[in-house]
Protein backbone atom coordinates (compact mmCIF):
# COMPACT_ATOMS: atom_id res chain seq x y z
CA UNK A 1 0.00 0.00 0.00
CA UNK A 2 1.38 3.41 -0.95
CA UNK A 3 1.04 6.45 1.30
CA UNK A 4 -1.57 7.88 -1.10
CA UNK A 5 -3.71 4.73 -0.89
CA UNK A 6 -3.37 4.62 2.88
CA UNK A 7 -4.36 8.28 2.98
CA UNK A 8 -7.71 7.63 1.27
CA UNK A 9 -8.40 4.62 3.48
CA UNK A 10 -7.14 5.78 6.83
CA UNK A 11 -7.43 9.58 7.04
CA UNK A 12 -11.02 9.84 8.32
CA UNK A 13 -10.50 6.87 10.61
CA UNK A 14 -7.42 8.39 12.26
CA UNK A 15 -8.91 11.91 12.55
CA UNK A 16 -12.00 10.40 14.21
CA UNK A 17 -10.01 8.40 16.77
CA UNK A 18 -7.76 11.33 17.67
CA UNK A 19 -10.75 13.69 17.92
CA UNK A 20 -12.56 11.31 20.25
CA UNK A 21 -9.55 11.22 22.57
CA UNK A 22 -8.42 14.87 22.36
CA UNK A 23 -11.90 16.40 22.05
CA UNK A 24 -10.31 18.94 19.68
CA UNK A 25 -10.81 18.46 15.95
CA UNK A 26 -8.22 21.04 14.92
CA UNK A 27 -5.44 19.46 16.98
CA UNK A 28 -6.48 15.96 15.85
CA UNK A 29 -6.36 16.93 12.18
CA UNK A 30 -2.93 18.58 12.57
CA UNK A 31 -1.53 15.48 14.29
CA UNK A 32 -2.85 13.12 11.59
CA UNK A 33 -1.50 15.45 8.91
CA UNK A 34 1.92 15.27 10.63
CA UNK A 35 1.70 11.47 10.73
CA UNK A 36 1.11 11.26 6.98
CA UNK A 37 4.00 13.65 6.36
CA UNK A 38 6.20 11.30 8.37
CA UNK A 39 4.84 8.34 6.38
CA UNK A 40 5.84 10.06 3.14
CA UNK A 41 9.42 10.25 4.44
CA UNK A 42 9.67 6.79 5.95
CA UNK A 43 7.52 4.31 4.02
CA UNK A 44 9.38 4.59 0.71
CA UNK A 45 12.66 4.08 2.62
CA UNK A 46 11.70 1.50 5.29
CA UNK A 47 8.75 -0.20 3.55
CA UNK A 48 5.01 0.04 4.29
CA UNK A 49 4.20 -1.01 7.87
CA UNK A 50 2.29 -4.23 8.47
CA UNK A 51 -0.83 -2.36 9.59
CA UNK A 52 -0.72 1.09 7.95
CA UNK A 53 -3.83 2.36 9.78
CA UNK A 54 -2.49 1.46 13.20
CA UNK A 55 0.88 2.98 12.31
CA UNK A 56 -0.82 6.27 11.36
CA UNK A 57 -2.84 6.42 14.61
CA UNK A 58 0.20 5.65 16.76
CA UNK A 59 2.37 8.15 14.92
CA UNK A 60 -0.37 10.80 15.11
CA UNK A 61 -0.56 10.18 18.85
CA UNK A 62 3.16 10.83 19.20
CA UNK A 63 3.00 13.91 16.97
CA UNK A 64 0.09 15.21 19.05
CA UNK A 65 2.26 14.86 22.16
CA UNK A 66 5.01 16.91 20.44
CA UNK A 67 2.52 19.58 19.41
CA UNK A 68 0.91 19.82 22.85
CA UNK A 69 4.33 20.15 24.55
CA UNK A 70 5.39 22.81 22.08
CA UNK A 71 2.24 24.87 21.57
CA UNK A 72 -0.04 24.63 24.56
CA UNK A 73 0.08 26.52 27.82
CA UNK A 74 0.78 24.61 31.01
CA UNK A 75 -2.85 24.43 32.14
CA UNK A 76 -3.92 22.70 28.91
CA UNK A 77 -0.83 20.54 28.60
CA UNK A 78 -1.47 18.26 31.53
CA UNK A 79 -5.08 17.70 30.56
CA UNK A 80 -4.48 17.00 26.86
CA UNK A 81 -1.54 14.69 27.56
CA UNK A 82 -3.65 12.80 30.09
CA UNK A 83 -6.36 12.34 27.46
CA UNK A 84 -3.82 10.88 25.05
CA UNK A 85 -3.02 8.21 27.65
CA UNK A 86 -6.28 6.59 26.52
CA UNK A 87 -4.58 5.68 23.25
CA UNK A 88 -2.23 2.70 23.25
CA UNK A 89 1.42 3.48 22.46
CA UNK A 90 1.78 0.09 20.78
CA UNK A 91 0.55 -0.33 17.21
CA UNK A 92 -0.69 -3.86 17.90
CA UNK A 93 -3.24 -2.57 20.41
CA UNK A 94 -4.64 0.13 18.12
CA UNK A 95 -6.71 -2.28 16.02
CA UNK A 96 -8.97 -2.87 19.02
CA UNK A 97 -10.16 0.77 18.99
CA UNK A 98 -13.73 1.05 17.66
CA UNK A 99 -14.52 2.97 14.49
CA UNK A 100 -15.38 6.56 15.41
CA UNK A 101 -16.08 7.85 11.91
CA UNK A 102 -19.84 7.98 12.34
CA UNK A 103 -19.42 10.44 15.24
CA UNK A 104 -17.10 12.48 13.02
CA UNK A 105 -19.72 12.58 10.25
CA UNK A 106 -22.41 13.80 12.66
CA UNK A 107 -20.11 16.42 14.14
CA UNK A 108 -19.17 17.77 10.70
CA UNK A 109 -22.87 17.90 9.71
CA UNK A 110 -24.20 19.46 12.93
CA UNK A 111 -27.08 21.86 12.15
CA UNK A 112 -25.35 24.61 14.17
CA UNK A 113 -22.80 24.87 11.34
CA UNK A 114 -23.57 26.76 8.14
CA UNK A 115 -24.66 24.44 5.32
CA UNK A 116 -21.61 25.21 3.18
CA UNK A 117 -19.30 24.60 6.15
CA UNK A 118 -20.85 21.16 6.73
CA UNK A 119 -20.04 20.13 3.17
CA UNK A 120 -16.48 21.44 3.29
CA UNK A 121 -15.78 19.91 6.71
CA UNK A 122 -17.17 16.50 5.76
CA UNK A 123 -15.05 16.36 2.62
CA UNK A 124 -11.98 17.49 4.55
CA UNK A 125 -12.24 15.51 7.78
CA UNK A 126 -14.09 12.35 6.73
CA UNK A 127 -13.16 12.22 3.05
CA UNK A 128 -9.58 13.45 3.43
CA UNK A 129 -9.77 15.85 0.47
CA UNK A 130 -7.24 18.66 0.61
CA UNK A 131 -8.34 22.26 1.06
CA UNK A 132 -7.20 22.95 -2.53
CA UNK A 133 -9.34 20.09 -3.88
CA UNK A 134 -12.44 21.27 -2.03
CA UNK A 135 -11.84 24.87 -3.12
CA UNK A 136 -11.55 23.72 -6.73
CA UNK A 137 -14.71 21.63 -6.50
CA UNK A 138 -16.77 24.52 -5.19
CA UNK A 139 -15.14 27.17 -7.36
CA UNK A 140 -13.81 29.34 -4.56
CA UNK A 141 -10.23 30.39 -3.91
CA UNK A 142 -8.05 28.25 -1.66
CA UNK A 143 -7.64 30.95 1.03
CA UNK A 144 -11.44 31.39 1.13
CA UNK A 145 -11.94 27.66 1.62
CA UNK A 146 -9.15 27.49 4.21
CA UNK A 147 -10.86 30.32 6.12
CA UNK A 148 -14.21 28.55 5.95
CA UNK A 149 -12.71 25.35 7.36
CA UNK A 150 -10.87 27.15 10.16
CA UNK A 151 -14.01 29.05 11.14
CA UNK A 152 -16.08 25.87 11.16
CA UNK A 153 -13.57 24.09 13.40
CA UNK A 154 -13.45 27.08 15.78
CA UNK A 155 -17.22 27.07 15.87
CA UNK A 156 -17.31 23.39 16.82
CA UNK A 157 -15.09 24.15 19.78
CA UNK A 158 -16.57 27.57 20.59
CA UNK A 159 -20.21 26.47 20.55
CA UNK A 160 -19.55 23.10 22.20
CA UNK A 161 -20.79 20.95 19.32
CA UNK A 162 -20.50 17.39 20.67
CA UNK A 163 -18.41 14.63 19.11
CA UNK A 164 -20.78 11.69 19.17
CA UNK A 165 -23.48 9.82 17.29
CA UNK A 166 -26.73 11.47 18.41
CA UNK A 167 -28.99 9.34 20.62
CA UNK A 168 -31.94 7.63 18.87
CA UNK A 169 -34.50 10.29 19.76
CA UNK A 170 -32.39 12.98 18.02
CA UNK A 171 -31.68 10.91 14.88
CA UNK A 172 -34.84 11.92 12.99
CA UNK A 173 -33.69 15.56 13.06
CA UNK A 174 -29.94 14.91 12.78
CA UNK A 175 -29.74 12.28 10.02
CA UNK A 176 -31.35 14.38 7.23
CA UNK A 177 -28.61 17.06 7.27
CA UNK A 178 -25.99 14.29 7.00
CA UNK A 179 -27.74 12.73 4.00
CA UNK A 180 -28.26 16.19 2.48
CA UNK A 181 -24.51 16.90 2.65
CA UNK A 182 -23.67 13.70 0.77
CA UNK A 183 -26.35 14.30 -1.83
CA UNK A 184 -25.24 17.90 -2.36
CA UNK A 185 -21.68 16.72 -2.95
CA UNK A 186 -22.98 14.15 -5.40
CA UNK A 187 -25.17 16.65 -7.24
CA UNK A 188 -22.40 19.22 -7.40
CA UNK A 189 -20.42 16.54 -9.23
CA UNK A 190 -23.32 15.21 -11.30
CA UNK A 191 -24.74 18.49 -12.55
CA UNK A 192 -21.93 20.97 -12.05
CA UNK A 193 -23.87 24.18 -11.54
CA UNK A 194 -21.51 26.27 -13.60
CA UNK A 195 -18.43 26.00 -15.74
CA UNK A 196 -17.50 23.92 -18.71
CA UNK A 197 -17.62 20.35 -17.34
CA UNK A 198 -21.14 19.10 -16.88
CA UNK A 199 -20.09 16.18 -14.70
CA UNK A 200 -17.26 16.27 -12.18
CA UNK A 201 -16.71 12.59 -11.66
CA UNK A 202 -14.37 12.97 -8.70
CA UNK A 203 -17.11 14.52 -6.58
CA UNK A 204 -19.62 11.81 -7.57
CA UNK A 205 -17.10 9.13 -6.61
CA UNK A 206 -16.37 10.81 -3.30
CA UNK A 207 -20.08 11.12 -2.45
CA UNK A 208 -20.62 7.44 -3.26
CA UNK A 209 -17.58 6.44 -1.21
CA UNK A 210 -18.95 8.39 1.78
CA UNK A 211 -22.42 6.97 1.12
CA UNK A 212 -21.01 3.43 1.27
CA UNK A 213 -19.23 4.27 4.51
CA UNK A 214 -22.48 5.58 5.99
CA UNK A 215 -24.37 2.48 4.80
CA UNK A 216 -21.80 0.27 6.54
CA UNK A 217 -21.91 2.35 9.73
CA UNK A 218 -25.75 2.54 9.77
CA UNK A 219 -26.82 -0.75 8.12
CA UNK A 220 -30.38 -0.57 9.49
CA UNK A 221 -31.10 2.99 8.40
CA UNK A 222 -33.27 2.72 5.25
CA UNK A 223 -32.78 6.32 4.15
CA UNK A 224 -28.97 6.02 4.31
CA UNK A 225 -29.31 2.96 2.04
CA UNK A 226 -31.87 4.76 -0.10
CA UNK A 227 -29.48 7.64 -0.68
CA UNK A 228 -26.66 5.26 -1.63
CA UNK A 229 -28.97 3.42 -4.06
CA UNK A 230 -30.06 6.74 -5.57
CA UNK A 231 -26.49 7.89 -6.13
CA UNK A 232 -25.41 4.55 -7.62
CA UNK A 233 -28.36 4.45 -10.02
CA UNK A 234 -27.90 8.04 -11.18
CA UNK A 235 -24.17 7.59 -11.50
CA UNK A 236 -24.64 4.49 -13.66
CA UNK A 237 -25.71 6.82 -16.48
CA UNK A 238 -22.82 9.24 -16.05
CA UNK A 239 -21.01 8.31 -19.30
CA UNK A 240 -24.20 8.32 -21.37
CA UNK A 241 -25.29 11.77 -20.23
CA UNK A 242 -22.60 13.61 -22.20
CA UNK A 243 -21.76 12.77 -25.83
CA UNK A 244 -18.30 12.79 -27.40
CA UNK A 245 -18.48 16.50 -28.15
CA UNK A 246 -19.43 17.32 -24.57
CA UNK A 247 -23.14 17.87 -25.26
CA UNK A 248 -25.82 16.95 -22.74
CA UNK A 249 -27.88 13.90 -23.77
CA UNK A 250 -31.36 13.48 -22.27
CA UNK A 251 -32.46 10.15 -20.85
CA UNK A 252 -34.66 9.12 -23.80
CA UNK A 253 -31.79 9.70 -26.28
CA UNK A 254 -29.04 8.02 -24.23
CA UNK A 255 -26.98 5.12 -25.57
CA UNK A 256 -27.88 2.39 -23.09
CA UNK A 257 -24.79 0.36 -23.86
CA UNK A 258 -22.89 3.11 -22.02
CA UNK A 259 -24.83 2.55 -18.80
CA UNK A 260 -22.73 0.94 -16.08
CA UNK A 261 -24.42 -2.43 -15.43
CA UNK A 262 -22.31 -3.06 -12.34
CA UNK A 263 -23.46 0.16 -10.69
CA UNK A 264 -27.07 -0.50 -11.69
CA UNK A 265 -26.99 -3.98 -10.12
CA UNK A 266 -25.36 -2.61 -6.97
CA UNK A 267 -27.91 0.22 -6.76
CA UNK A 268 -30.86 -2.14 -7.18
CA UNK A 269 -29.53 -4.48 -4.49
CA UNK A 270 -29.01 -1.63 -2.01
CA UNK A 271 -32.51 -0.31 -2.77
CA UNK A 272 -34.01 -3.75 -2.17
CA UNK A 273 -32.31 -3.95 1.20
CA UNK A 274 -33.56 -0.42 2.08
CA UNK A 275 -37.15 -1.23 1.11
CA UNK A 276 -37.06 -4.49 3.10
CA UNK A 277 -36.61 -2.40 6.28
CA UNK A 278 -40.12 -1.06 5.66
CA UNK A 279 -39.72 2.59 6.59
CA UNK A 280 -40.42 4.71 3.55
CA UNK A 281 -38.56 7.96 2.93
CA UNK A 282 -37.79 10.51 0.22
CA UNK A 283 -34.39 9.07 -0.78
CA UNK A 284 -35.81 5.57 -1.20
CA UNK A 285 -38.61 6.93 -3.37
CA UNK A 286 -36.18 8.93 -5.50
CA UNK A 287 -34.06 5.79 -5.85
CA UNK A 288 -37.16 3.85 -6.88
CA UNK A 289 -37.78 6.51 -9.54
CA UNK A 290 -34.17 6.25 -10.75
CA UNK A 291 -34.56 2.45 -10.85
CA UNK A 292 -37.76 2.79 -12.88
CA UNK A 293 -35.89 4.95 -15.40
CA UNK A 294 -33.05 2.45 -15.64
CA UNK A 295 -35.48 -0.45 -16.09
CA UNK A 296 -37.42 1.53 -18.70
CA UNK A 297 -40.72 1.33 -16.82
CA UNK A 298 -43.69 3.21 -18.31
CA UNK A 299 -44.03 6.92 -17.42
CA UNK A 300 -47.38 6.25 -15.74
CA UNK A 301 -45.54 4.14 -13.13
CA UNK A 302 -42.97 6.88 -12.63
CA UNK A 303 -45.77 9.42 -12.23
CA UNK A 304 -47.29 7.23 -9.49
CA UNK A 305 -43.95 7.15 -7.65
CA UNK A 306 -43.83 10.96 -7.88
CA UNK A 307 -47.37 11.13 -6.44
CA UNK A 308 -46.01 9.36 -3.35
CA UNK A 309 -42.86 11.49 -3.21
CA UNK A 310 -44.91 14.69 -3.33
CA UNK A 311 -46.81 13.49 -0.24
CA UNK A 312 -43.57 13.42 1.82
CA UNK A 313 -41.72 16.20 0.05
CA UNK A 314 -44.06 18.76 -1.53
CA UNK A 315 -41.19 21.04 -2.61
CA UNK A 316 -41.66 22.90 -5.92
CA UNK A 317 -38.82 20.96 -7.62
CA UNK A 318 -40.47 17.62 -6.82
CA UNK A 319 -43.81 18.98 -8.02
CA UNK A 320 -42.16 20.06 -11.26
CA UNK A 321 -40.73 16.58 -11.81
CA UNK A 322 -44.12 15.05 -11.06
CA UNK A 323 -45.78 17.37 -13.59
CA UNK A 324 -43.25 16.36 -16.26
CA UNK A 325 -43.76 12.63 -15.52
CA UNK A 326 -47.54 13.09 -15.82
CA UNK A 327 -47.07 14.90 -19.14
CA UNK A 328 -44.77 12.21 -20.51
CA UNK A 329 -47.21 9.48 -19.47
CA UNK A 330 -49.49 10.90 -22.15
CA UNK A 331 -51.37 13.54 -20.17
CA UNK A 332 -49.43 16.47 -21.67
CA UNK A 333 -52.08 19.15 -21.09
CA UNK A 334 -52.53 18.12 -17.46
CA UNK A 335 -48.75 18.16 -16.93
CA UNK A 336 -48.41 21.60 -18.51
CA UNK A 337 -51.24 22.96 -16.37
CA UNK A 338 -49.43 21.68 -13.24
CA UNK A 339 -46.16 23.31 -14.39
CA UNK A 340 -47.96 26.63 -14.81
CA UNK A 341 -49.48 26.42 -11.32
CA UNK A 342 -46.08 26.12 -9.62
CA UNK A 343 -44.95 28.93 -7.36
CA UNK A 344 -41.47 30.03 -6.51
CA UNK A 345 -39.52 28.51 -9.42
CA UNK A 346 -39.61 31.55 -11.74
CA UNK A 347 -35.82 31.83 -11.62
CA UNK A 348 -35.18 28.08 -12.02
CA UNK A 349 -33.93 27.34 -15.54
CA UNK A 350 -35.22 23.75 -15.55
CA UNK A 351 -38.80 24.97 -15.02
CA UNK A 352 -38.61 26.98 -18.23
CA UNK A 353 -36.77 24.20 -20.06
CA UNK A 354 -39.47 21.68 -19.02
CA UNK A 355 -42.28 24.05 -19.96
CA UNK A 356 -40.64 24.68 -23.33
CA UNK A 357 -40.30 20.96 -23.94
CA UNK A 358 -43.98 20.28 -23.20
CA UNK A 359 -45.06 23.17 -25.45
CA UNK A 360 -42.82 21.77 -28.19
CA UNK A 361 -44.52 18.38 -27.84
CA UNK A 362 -47.88 20.13 -28.22
CA UNK A 363 -46.46 21.89 -31.31
CA UNK A 364 -47.02 25.33 -29.72
CA UNK A 365 -43.73 26.50 -31.19
CA UNK A 366 -43.88 30.24 -30.57
CA UNK A 367 -44.61 29.76 -26.86
CA UNK A 368 -41.96 27.04 -26.67
CA UNK A 369 -39.38 29.43 -28.11
CA UNK A 370 -40.17 32.04 -25.43
CA UNK A 371 -39.62 29.47 -22.68
CA UNK A 372 -36.37 28.14 -24.22
CA UNK A 373 -35.07 31.73 -24.31
CA UNK A 374 -36.00 32.28 -20.65
CA UNK A 375 -34.24 29.01 -19.70
CA UNK A 376 -31.17 30.13 -21.64
CA UNK A 377 -31.07 33.42 -19.73
CA UNK A 378 -31.03 31.53 -16.45
CA UNK A 379 -28.51 28.71 -16.92
CA UNK A 380 -24.78 29.12 -16.39
CA UNK A 381 -23.76 25.62 -17.49
CA UNK A 382 -22.22 25.55 -20.98
CA UNK A 383 -23.45 22.13 -22.14
CA UNK A 384 -26.99 22.91 -20.98
CA UNK A 385 -26.82 26.16 -22.93
CA UNK A 386 -25.83 24.35 -26.12
CA UNK A 387 -28.63 21.83 -25.66
CA UNK A 388 -31.22 24.59 -25.18
CA UNK A 389 -29.88 26.56 -28.16
CA UNK A 390 -30.30 23.45 -30.33
CA UNK A 391 -33.91 22.99 -29.21
CA UNK A 392 -34.61 26.70 -29.73
CA UNK A 393 -33.43 26.45 -33.36
CA UNK A 394 -35.76 23.45 -33.84
CA UNK A 395 -38.86 25.40 -32.86
CA UNK A 396 -37.92 28.73 -34.45
Amino acid at each position, binding site marked *: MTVEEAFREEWGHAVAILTRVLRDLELAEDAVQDAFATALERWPRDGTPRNPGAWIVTTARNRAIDRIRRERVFREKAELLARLEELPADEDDVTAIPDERLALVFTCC*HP*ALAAESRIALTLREVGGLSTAEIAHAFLVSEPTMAQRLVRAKRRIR*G*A*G*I*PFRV*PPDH*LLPERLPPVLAVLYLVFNEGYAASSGSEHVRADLCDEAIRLGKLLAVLMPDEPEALGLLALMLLQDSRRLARIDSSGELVLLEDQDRSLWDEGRIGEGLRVLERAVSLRRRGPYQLQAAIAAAHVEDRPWSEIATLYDRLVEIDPSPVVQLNRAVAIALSGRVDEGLALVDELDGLGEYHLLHAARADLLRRLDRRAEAAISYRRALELTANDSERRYLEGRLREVS
Partner: protein
Amino acid sequence: MKYALLIHGDDSAWVDLPDEEKAALRAEEMPQWISLFEELSKADPGVSGYELDGRSTARVVQVRDGERIVTDGPFAETKEIVGGVFLVDLPDLDEAIRLAALIPTAKHGSIEIRPLQE
Protein backbone atom coordinates in the same frame (compact mmCIF):
# COMPACT_ATOMS: atom_id res chain seq x y z
CA MET B 1 -19.00 24.82 28.59
CA LYS B 2 -20.95 27.83 29.85
CA TYR B 3 -23.96 29.06 27.90
CA ALA B 4 -26.28 32.04 28.19
CA LEU B 5 -29.85 31.20 27.25
CA LEU B 6 -31.40 34.53 26.26
CA ILE B 7 -35.18 34.53 26.39
CA HIS B 8 -36.62 36.67 23.61
CA GLY B 9 -40.28 37.56 23.40
CA ASP B 10 -42.81 40.18 22.52
CA ASP B 11 -43.95 41.69 25.82
CA SER B 12 -46.30 44.27 24.26
CA ALA B 13 -49.32 41.99 24.42
CA TRP B 14 -48.38 41.02 27.97
CA VAL B 15 -47.91 44.47 29.57
CA ASP B 16 -51.37 45.69 28.60
CA LEU B 17 -53.15 42.80 30.29
CA PRO B 18 -54.96 43.45 33.58
CA ASP B 19 -53.09 42.15 36.63
CA GLU B 20 -55.50 39.28 37.31
CA GLU B 21 -55.13 37.96 33.76
CA LYS B 22 -51.34 38.18 34.06
CA ALA B 23 -51.56 36.20 37.29
CA ALA B 24 -53.76 33.58 35.64
CA LEU B 25 -51.34 33.18 32.74
CA ARG B 26 -48.41 32.91 35.13
CA ALA B 27 -50.21 30.25 37.16
CA GLU B 28 -50.90 28.31 33.99
CA GLU B 29 -47.23 28.30 32.96
CA MET B 30 -45.92 27.80 36.49
CA PRO B 31 -45.76 23.95 36.48
CA GLN B 32 -43.69 24.12 33.27
CA TRP B 33 -41.32 26.66 34.83
CA ILE B 34 -40.94 24.49 37.93
CA SER B 35 -40.07 21.41 35.90
CA LEU B 36 -37.66 23.55 33.83
CA PHE B 37 -35.89 24.72 37.01
CA GLU B 38 -35.62 21.09 38.13
CA GLU B 39 -34.11 20.04 34.79
CA LEU B 40 -31.70 22.99 34.78
CA SER B 41 -30.45 22.37 38.30
CA LYS B 42 -30.08 18.68 37.56
CA ALA B 43 -27.87 19.59 34.57
CA ASP B 44 -25.95 22.26 36.49
CA PRO B 45 -26.50 22.78 40.23
CA GLY B 46 -24.82 26.21 39.85
CA VAL B 47 -27.32 27.48 37.29
CA SER B 48 -28.48 31.05 37.66
CA GLY B 49 -31.35 32.86 36.00
CA TYR B 50 -32.98 36.27 36.00
CA GLU B 51 -36.19 37.74 34.72
CA LEU B 52 -35.72 41.26 33.36
CA ASP B 53 -38.20 44.03 33.99
CA GLY B 54 -40.37 45.14 31.04
CA ARG B 55 -39.44 47.58 28.31
CA SER B 56 -41.07 50.58 30.01
CA THR B 57 -38.27 50.77 32.59
CA ALA B 58 -35.43 50.23 30.08
CA ARG B 59 -33.00 52.99 29.10
CA VAL B 60 -30.43 52.90 26.32
CA VAL B 61 -27.12 54.73 26.72
CA GLN B 62 -24.86 55.60 23.78
CA VAL B 63 -21.74 57.75 23.70
CA ARG B 64 -21.16 59.43 20.35
CA ASP B 65 -18.31 61.90 19.80
CA GLY B 66 -17.94 62.12 23.55
CA GLU B 67 -21.60 63.00 24.04
CA ARG B 68 -23.87 60.89 26.14
CA ILE B 69 -27.24 60.06 24.59
CA VAL B 70 -29.86 58.42 26.78
CA THR B 71 -33.08 57.20 25.23
CA ASP B 72 -35.99 54.99 26.17
CA GLY B 73 -35.21 51.42 25.37
CA PRO B 74 -34.74 48.91 24.16
CA PHE B 75 -35.07 49.77 20.45
CA ALA B 76 -38.29 51.23 19.16
CA GLU B 77 -38.33 49.15 15.97
CA THR B 78 -37.99 45.76 17.63
CA LYS B 79 -40.99 43.95 19.04
CA GLU B 80 -38.97 41.06 20.49
CA ILE B 81 -36.93 41.97 23.55
CA VAL B 82 -34.79 40.01 25.98
CA GLY B 83 -37.07 39.18 28.87
CA GLY B 84 -34.73 36.97 30.84
CA VAL B 85 -31.53 35.01 30.91
CA PHE B 86 -30.16 31.75 32.28
CA LEU B 87 -26.43 31.13 32.80
CA VAL B 88 -25.71 27.43 32.82
CA ASP B 89 -22.69 25.12 32.57
CA LEU B 90 -23.42 22.17 30.23
CA PRO B 91 -21.52 19.37 28.52
CA ASP B 92 -22.37 20.44 24.96
CA LEU B 93 -24.57 22.39 22.56
CA ASP B 94 -27.06 19.54 22.10
CA GLU B 95 -27.81 19.64 25.83
CA ALA B 96 -28.21 23.44 25.64
CA ILE B 97 -30.67 23.03 22.76
CA ARG B 98 -32.62 20.38 24.69
CA LEU B 99 -32.97 22.60 27.78
CA ALA B 100 -33.75 25.74 25.77
CA ALA B 101 -36.68 23.93 24.17
CA LEU B 102 -38.07 23.28 27.68
CA ILE B 103 -38.38 27.01 28.45
CA PRO B 104 -42.16 27.65 28.35
CA THR B 105 -41.89 30.90 26.36
CA ALA B 106 -40.10 29.05 23.50
CA LYS B 107 -43.64 28.18 22.37
CA HIS B 108 -44.40 31.80 21.38
CA GLY B 109 -41.05 33.63 21.59
CA SER B 110 -37.55 32.33 20.95
CA ILE B 111 -34.50 31.30 22.93
CA GLU B 112 -31.05 32.40 21.80
CA ILE B 113 -28.18 30.14 22.90
CA ARG B 114 -24.90 32.01 23.27
CA PRO B 115 -21.75 30.19 24.42
CA LEU B 116 -19.72 32.27 26.90
CA GLN B 117 -16.16 32.91 25.77
CA GLU B 118 -13.61 31.15 27.94
